[in-house]
């Protein structure tokens, strides 16, 4: 009769459902949420666009003075990521030599514009 005892125990205890809008679900530290690019660090090597499995990253021409491993160099292009094509596998974060692209642990990445782009 463990089913009955479990039922009575549940009847008196607080239900576990998290009422989403009021109480938020705790997002753990390394969660792979929305992708983000740190513009100062990016050296425009387009490694992320090569590695991206869903071709979400396109390189956009953009001239900028950047400092990489002590040396100064001028980069010619910068990644532009289509948010709703990105499958959040964080391969770009793994293979980026300059750690310029990373996954924020921001949970909700919904939106209305299908071609929304993160630069």
């Amino acid at each position, binding site marked *: 009769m463990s089913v009955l005892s479990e039922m009575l125990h549940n009847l008196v205890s607080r*239900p576990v459902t998290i009422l989403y809008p009021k109480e938020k679900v705790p997002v753990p530290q390394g969660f792979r949420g929305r992708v983000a690019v740190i513009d100062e660090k990016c050296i425009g090597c387009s490694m992320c666009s090569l590695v991206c499995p869903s071709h979400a990253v396109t390189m956009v021409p953009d001239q900028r003075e950047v400092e990489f491993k002590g040396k100064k160099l001028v980069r010619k292009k910068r990644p532009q990521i289509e948010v709703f094509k990105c499958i959040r596998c964080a391969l770009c974060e793994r293979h980026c030599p300059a750690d310029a692209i990373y996954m924020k642990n921001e949970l909700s990445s919904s939106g209305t514009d299908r071609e929304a782009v993160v630069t």
Partner: protein
Amino acid sequence: MTDTPLIIVYIFLFPGFLFLLAYAMLFEFLDRRIAARMQHRVGPPLFQPFADFVKMLGKEVIDPQGVDRPVFDAAPVIALAAVMTAFLYIPVVSASPLAFQGDLVLVLYLMALPTIILFVMGWLSRNIYSAIGGIRTVTQMFIYEVPFFLALLTPALMAGTWSISEIVSWQQDHLWFMVLQPIGFVVALIGLQAKLERTPFDIPEAETELVAGPWTELTGRRLALMHLASDVSCVTGCALIAALFLGGPTIPWTIAPVWLGWICGFFLFLAKTLVVLLILSSVKVATGRIRIDQLNTIGWKYIASAALVQVAVVLVMNSIRVGA
């Protein structure tokens, strides 16, 4: 108490239709809330059944191809009407003014009507799932109907009358029938659970095999009315069992002023029907659905024989009491 304006008020307002509909929706809310809390969930808000009802009324009504529209529209209304009239004969405040010798049989007949209508709806909607669902409704009805009637007729046998109100007043002088006829009480509960097609016995509406059984092709207005009919039959069933086995709106000693008696009678009625509902929904939560042939063996082997034993016991007790 028998002049017509009061009767009209009795039928339409207080313990009649308006109260019944509100109480049915409250019942469905309580049932879903208790079941949810036992499953460690939150459960729906108070006005969920009312909101469902209004939304469903507004939805588009889709007729399956080649269906007989007038009958398909009329069936839910008949089911609802049958069950609501059955409620009038069950004493709510004290003895019901419309009581007459034999209203127990009428109530039982009216309670059986929705099941048959569900079969008709299943058969009419020309869809393989609802056809099989309809057949299952009827086969299930043959199984639980006989023990259910036996269990509900034994109190009448012992009290010597066929009117529910008189049975209730008989119980006021003697013990409750739950104490006198425990087996009958259990069989009646099982029969009610099967009649309302709730989880251990919701074989016709088996969600995982037959989509929704006879309910498959019901949409919009029809679904709203049929759903309301099943809620109201749940209230009527619980009230019937509360009246026959738990002494209805009375307690063994009478209260002096009449109007105070009515009020506490009403609250007693509410309390007792809620107790029956609590039992039914905990049974619903605690068990899974059994198959139609398993129900057949259990139904005829155990439940029917228990009902027969109960009848025999009552007959013996009657003969001793009459003899002594």
